């Protein structure tokens, strides 16, 4: 399996470019440290307690958007320096090329998630459903990172340059984040906005993780529903990307 070969190579690049990790964790960390402090006073009554505990699932999704969402940029770098072409004409499976890239990106996302979780634990934010809950959250976050990194990879194959790539990513990320329950509880939302929030699959991911964190039990129905949707979306984006990479390129 060449997944490991691609994975190791990308990890080496990441180690030599730690700035990519710092930059993608910076914004979510600022949200966690400063926004929560500022919003805690007004939101306390709405969220029923520790606002950091409430906002943390949304921040974890935001850090995935930030790290995995921008990961496609490396394809533009390797296209420019020629190694993208060299890998593509080698006999390795196209799926291994994609998966090697995605797993490295997901690893970075999890490193950043780990850092944010450690910081939030200083503010008494815990997973109330215990070890079982932690495992389920890891699986759900894995699916989220896989989907986000997959979309990013697909866009990098479809869009002509970095400028177009970042324009599309920035246009997608913030609306998806704000039109969700990342910052505010669903019970306060009404009308069309509520419908849009409910149509956003990331709302369900945030809600599922939040419920596992805040409650002492796991609502399996909710987890299977959310996990199922994300699993299907992950499969779809993987197959579309695979088709794109396998298909003949045009000039």
């Amino acid at each position: 399996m060449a997944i490991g070969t691609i994975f190791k190579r990308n990890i080496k690049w990441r180690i030599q470019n730690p700035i990519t990790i710092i930059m993608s964790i910076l914004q979510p960390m600022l949200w966690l440290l400063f926004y929560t402090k500022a919003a805690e006073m007004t939101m306390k009554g709405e969220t029923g307690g520790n606002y950091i505990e409430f906002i943390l699932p949304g921040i974890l999704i935001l850090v995935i958007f930030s790290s995995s969402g921008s990961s496609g940029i490396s394809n533009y770098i390797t296209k420019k320096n020629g190694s993208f072409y060299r890998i593509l004409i080698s006999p390795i499976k196209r799926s291994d090329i994609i998966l090697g890239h995605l797993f490295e990106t997901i690893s970075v996302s999890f490193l950043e998630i780990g850092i944010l979780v450690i910081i939030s634990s200083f503010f008494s934010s815990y997973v109330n459903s215990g070890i079982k809950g932690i495992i389920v959250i890891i699986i759900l976050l894995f699916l989220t990172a896989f989907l986000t990194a997959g979309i990013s990879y697909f866009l990098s194959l479809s869009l002509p340059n970095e400028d177009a790539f970042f324009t599309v990513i920035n246009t997608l990320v913030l609306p998806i984040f704000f039109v969700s329950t990342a910052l505010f509880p669903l019970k306060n939302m009404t009308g069309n906005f509520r419908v849009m929030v409910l149509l956003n699959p990331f709302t369900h991911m945030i809600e599922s993780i939040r419920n596992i964190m805040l409650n002492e039990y796991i609502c399996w129905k909710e987890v299977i529903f959310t996990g199922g949707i994300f699993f299907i979306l992950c499969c779809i984006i993987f197959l579309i990307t695979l088709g794109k990479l396998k298909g003949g390129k045009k000039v």
Partner: protein
Amino acid sequence: MEIIQIKNLIKKYKNEKKVLDIKKLTVKQGEIFSLLGPNGAGKSTLINILTTYLDYDSGEIKILGKNLREESKEIRKNIACVAQNISIDEHLSLEENLIFQGNLYGIAKEELKKRAERFIDEFELKEYVKSPVSTYSGGIKRRLDIAVNMISCPKILFLDEPTVGIDIHSRKIIWEMMKRIKDKYGTTIFLTTHYLEEAQELSDYICIMKNGDIAAQGTINDLEKYINQKIIKIEFENEKNAEYAKEKIFKDKSVRLKKNELYLKIDSQDEIIYLNKILLDNKIDFLYFGLLKPNLEEIFINIMDENRESEGIWQ
């Protein structure tokens, strides 16, 4: 044995304009095949197709007897390509670059180690092993690039203008590398280049491309009349003198007049002394007298014009 066979290949741009339209092209096993052509001739597009990177519209391509479209994975095991841009990873060390490429081709660990050592020796890269790749000169990076692509011991090595932007010393070393690759490993080399002297120095067979089509092809001897065509350029003080020389002195010669410059086609170098003597004997002053080697563009014009049964550049 014909290792690459192309028949009726057509490749179009998105706007339906043809990039390539090749009726027939074959490359024999073990030879250095050079594809010459100006920018936009379709050389890189052809390499991108043959290396399975780009798809094509119609035609039939066989590499090692295998259909390019249907058996691309099998073909990929036996080819490698040194692309126009140096494609080594600067965040990896010299050895890591070789190992990474070997892993892509599924070479066993022990064998890969042996090959890496062999190619480091073979391409004189030992003294650079401990230095970061980003500090290498363009020539050394290119040598590593070729070593990286040789690690899988491909049956066909494609090189897309490998010496562009490389100093003359490194260019000569790369030429030696290519000859060694061909002789020692029996690798078929498919080379694209802008440089006539490079094609002449290395090639067993040359194909000249123009506008996606093959303008001429053959061995160096077959194309001698185009490549080694000799032209004398004489620059006079004014157009009147140039015209006089054309009408009176060189009236029996194949001459082209361009303002105050005369261009004469000659068959042998001996004629240089003779023509020079005529001018001196007739006491015609001139500013410049020299032998020109036709550049690639002039050769194309000549070939294309000759195909139209004209007098070529002398029209």
